[in-house]
């Protein structure tokens, strides 16, 4: 259950991707979801990893989420963690991650659409309700100031830094979670330097800035070089999204990176703009 926190969170989210590969034979392609038995197993295994990771850097499990970008499974929980931990993460709350039922059998998709249409009638709740309620307790001057600051904040595109080892699905994650097309170069394999990409979100959702950081864990020499890049880029970002492979056997490099990221982000609790 969600509980309210009066503490600025560390701007870090760890995504455990590719959970669809954790249980052999556990994915129902027709429905595009795990079988019930597989879901119970992968939930248990993912929670074990989350518990292990949360201990290494004294991070709470509110920073870690398991999902599958390729199958579009649990994208909203991942987005929720990004929103909760990012600076001004509410700017991302209009984003609708890609729909998992689009990958299901057409008949399943039609059934799901029909059921969702029935449920959505008269069931609109959003965070604007909260803002409206708060305004009741503020003077007109304070409300005006709040609105001005909000407008200023909304003019800045959210800036997300993404990193992880090669092949963990960084690009697929960005495309699926933020529902955006990210064009990658066909001439280079892997990212060797930080790359800044800006693109429009769907439905007039504005711009999202993504800093694609070079992957770690190839060699000690490269890691030392990349640490400098990370430290120069990360303080200005609203959130850092670290992607890991959920079924990876060796977590040493990832654990080391989580520790470093936590330390760097604690030094700059809010983005240096």
């Amino acid at each position: 259950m969600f509980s309210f926190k009066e503490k600025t969170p560390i701007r870090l989210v760890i995504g455990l991707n590719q959970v669809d590969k954790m249980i052999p034979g556990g994915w129902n392609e027709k429905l595009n979801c795990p079988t019930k038995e597989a879901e119970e197993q992968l939930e248990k295994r993912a929670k074990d990893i989350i518990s292990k990771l949360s201990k290494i850097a004294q991070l709470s499990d509110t920073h870690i989420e398991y999902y599958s970008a390729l199958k579009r499974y649990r994208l909203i929980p991942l987005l929720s963690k990004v929103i909760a931990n990012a600076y001004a993460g509410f700017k991302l709350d209009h984003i609708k991650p890609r729909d998992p039922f689009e990958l299901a059998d057409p008949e399943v998709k039609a059934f799901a659409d029909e059921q969702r249409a029935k449920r959505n009638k008269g069931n609109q709740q959003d965070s604007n309700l909260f803002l409206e309620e708060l305004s009741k307790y503020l003077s007109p001057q304070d409300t005006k100031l709040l609105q001005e600051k909000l407008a200023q904040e909304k003019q800045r595109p959210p800036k997300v830094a993404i990193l992880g080892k090669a092949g963990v699905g960084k690009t697929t994650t960005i495309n699926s979670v933020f529902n955006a097309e990210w064009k990658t170069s066909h001439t280079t394999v892997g990212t060797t330097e930080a790359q800044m990409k800006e693109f429009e979100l769907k439905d007039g959702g504005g711009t999202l800035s993504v800093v694609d950081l070079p992957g770690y864990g190839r060699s000690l020499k490269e890691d030392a070089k990349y640490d400098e890049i990370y430290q120069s880029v990360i303080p200005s970002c609203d959130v850092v999204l670290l992607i890991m492979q959920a079924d990876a056997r060796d977590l040493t490099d990832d654990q080391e990176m989580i520790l470093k990221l936590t330390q760097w982000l604690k030094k700059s609790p809010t983005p240096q703009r």
Partner: protein
Amino acid sequence: MAMSEWERQRTLEMIDKLSDNERERVLSSVQSFTNWLRDKLYFIYNKVRDKVRSLWDKLCSFFY
């Protein structure tokens, strides 16, 4: 091939989970807004601090 009753049930379960996830997303946004308010306009945050908590509880009660 037509959907079996089991497949329909499983699909409905997945839709339920998506609805729950959406609610958590709204609460995340509220939490984020509060964090931002505390950082950006601390004096306003202080004025509504007690209200924030009760409104949070109210919002949770809509959902759970």
